[in-house]
């Protein structure tokens, strides 16, 4: 099987040496040291490994790295620009929408995907979009509030 030798991650071309069928998660974490993307279940059930591929949230634990080759991959480490946090990152801090924060990367990446397609989601839509992401600490209401806050801010509203 062909090996994958490079990936476009967070705006840069990065060299890797991976089997085509290796999970994108393992390549990001082991070869590129992008450990903000987390392992939680390995079966696409918890969302901790969520990254964007061409802007769309994907479970990187179930994504063969070959499927991401030639596409634009964004991980949690690639969201902030020039020292400025993404509005969702700001909102998670403002709402204290975390306890252990192990789910936070995946939550934020899933929410980035949501706000890209729906800049003004209802509470129900936010819950639908994030239902595949598990938070064991029970910060769900704060996460919903953070997504609402970020949506407001991204639409140009004052914080």
């Amino acid at each position: 099987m062909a090996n994958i030798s490079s990936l476009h991650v967070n705006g840069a071309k990065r060299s890797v040496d991976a089997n085509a069928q290796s999970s994108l998660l393992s390549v990001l974490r082991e070869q590129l040291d992008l450990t903000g993307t987390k392992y939680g279940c390995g079966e696409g059930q918890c969302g901790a490994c969520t990254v964007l591929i061409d802007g769309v949230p994907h479970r990187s634990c179930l994504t063969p790295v070959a499927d991401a080759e030639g596409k634009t991959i964004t991980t949690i480490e690639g969201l902030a620009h020039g020292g400025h946090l993404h509005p969702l990152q700001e909102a998670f801090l403002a709402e204290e929408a975390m306890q252990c924060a192990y789910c936070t990367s995946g939550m934020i990446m899933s929410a980035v995907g949501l706000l890209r397609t729906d800049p003004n989601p209802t509470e129900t839509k936010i819950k639908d979009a994030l239902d595949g992401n598990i938070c064991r600490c029970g910060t769900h209401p704060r996460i919903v509030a953070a997504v609402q806050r970020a949506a407001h801010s991204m639409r140009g509203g004052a914080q």
Partner: protein
Amino acid sequence: MNEHANVPLAIEPERYELREARAYVFDLTRRDLFKFLGAGALILCASSRATALQESGRGQRRMDDMPKDVGAWLHIGQDGKVTAFTGKVEVGQNIRTSLSQAVAEELRVPTSQIRLVMGDTLLTPYDMGTFGSRTTPTMNLQLRRAAAAACDMLKDLAAQTWNVPRENLIAADGKISDQLSKNSATYGDLLKNRELAQLIPDQDPLLPATEWKIAGRPLAKIGGRDFVTGAHKYPSDQKRPGMIYGKVVRPSKFEATLASVDTSGAEKMPGVIVVRDGDFIGVAAPSEELATHAAAAIKSEWSAAPQPSSKNVFEYLRNNPAARESSNASPQATSPTNAISASYNVAYIAHAPLEPRAALAEWNGDMLTVWTGTQRPFGVREELAAAFHIPQESVHVLMPDTGSGYGGKHTGETAIEAARLARAAKKPVKLVWTRKEEFTWAYFRPAGVIDIRASVDSNGRLEYWEFTNFNSGGSGLNTPYAAEVRNERFQPTKYPLRQGSYRGLAATANHFARESFMDELAHQAKLDPLEFRLKNLKDDRLRAVFEAAAKKFGWPHAKKSPGQGFGIAGGVEKGGYIATCGEVAVERGTGAVRVVRLISAFECGAIVNPDGLRNQVEGSNIMGLGGALFEAIDFEDGRILNAAFSKYRVPRFKDVPAVETVLLDRRDLPSAGAGETPIVGVAACIGNAIFDATGIRLRSLPMVPNGLKLV
């Protein structure tokens, strides 16, 4: 490869919280500490048991020898940076933040100038572990005392340096100032080229909570930015030069012994190291993927005796008593003829921390360093020392802030496994348990059976109360209600799964049973459930949270639609007082249960960080929904049948109701911990609401694993 046979890997299952304090031999010297920390001031807070301190007073004793029994210490450097050292660990309960507030308060420095070193067996004082909601009532006080003593020491120093009266000195914002002479110096400047050490006793007076300026207010999670940017390195994110990845070949069942093994398939794989040591079989390889393939290529046969199943676990617990442990029977403990009785069941559930157990182990000669996610770094150090027959001084355990624990990360098996593989590989090895391993080889919250028999007199007062808990534990066993005759006991039993601590311990099971049965008694006595509770309550603090929750909820609530139901439950545990009101909606036809809202009132003395506390109460209620409604471990003959998030349902966004929290701040009372107790009200509250909606009493947790079946 098969070196060092007979290294014991079996770990005694830990059944309940560890309670015994251990003697600790302090092996650092004062010189070592200054060498490591640099010049400045060092304040050590001794536990009250330390005899060396009996004659010492605050700000008086100068320390020459290192004491034997220190709970925490604090260092102020020449740059004014404050470092506090504690063996407690951060697993999401945000004690890094609340402890920093405590130090900032007493030392009068901004929290940004404070760094906490936590759970590092080389750098921090011995600590038994982070459990039992003990951090706030104990470590918070110790660090506050150390900080207060440091502040006094700095004032002494300034008074001497400027030759001014000490009473006029003011400490604020990391500086000591004298109003009259207009002298002012930062802590760092005062400590230039000095090495001051002081030992303070545990009983020093502190600022009363009514005077707090930094504590008692919300403070956002320290280092929050690192968590939202992915920069924070959890245990499973750690990396060392030359590191490779480990996997363990697991037995086919619990309590199994290895009958035969063929490792040849794995040994042929380039770069793969195979370790066989007694019944331990593991591999290490340059990638986790290769390690997984190699482990899968090992053929092993195991033998084990037949074991019980979750289908008959409650009969098993009832029929297999072990030694009788505790009872508080009143003298004439015979039940009156008007007594009613009921039995409640609680299933085994898993902690399922989102970060599974993980460890990175590295040997340097006979010295072992392990980074691992554990609530007991010093306990893991002991386990490692015992497993490898090396002194504890040769083992260094570090605990990076971890992806939660909930009482599930007390033991050190992952650390031992990683260390065993690292020793064979002669390279650092990282081992991260898979979700299936986490669901199978960790330990569980104990299942239990609870029998209650009680009677109420014609005035609605409890006259007789008999309560027996089989297996799940003694926490929260005793009723806070005033019954004339009481007979409460915990009956240990044989148990089919490895079991241990879980957030709230058995208090959740005991409150579920007690607060459900209080509802049954209220119904029988034709009294409102809240009125019945208040009538039988003598504890004012518990009464206050019941009244606060009821007021916020609007209890008693008139029903507006069929299928709507309201419930209330509460209790006191670990110094915290909780009352929870809930509303459910039960759909006719399907019987589907939806929790609509939960309102909790909580009181734990003086509040250190209100928003952090609110977060814990909300989180407890939401986590508690799982065990109340649908979480249960299915097992059969030594195997877990639902060891995956696709088979074991945890609360998700769509399950989460509107959650509100009322905090009662008692600045006149010492602060108690809050990470556990708020969880104990939710199951009974929901069960009582379901009864109110349907007339059906659900007495087994989880209550609606497949949706409520209406009769």
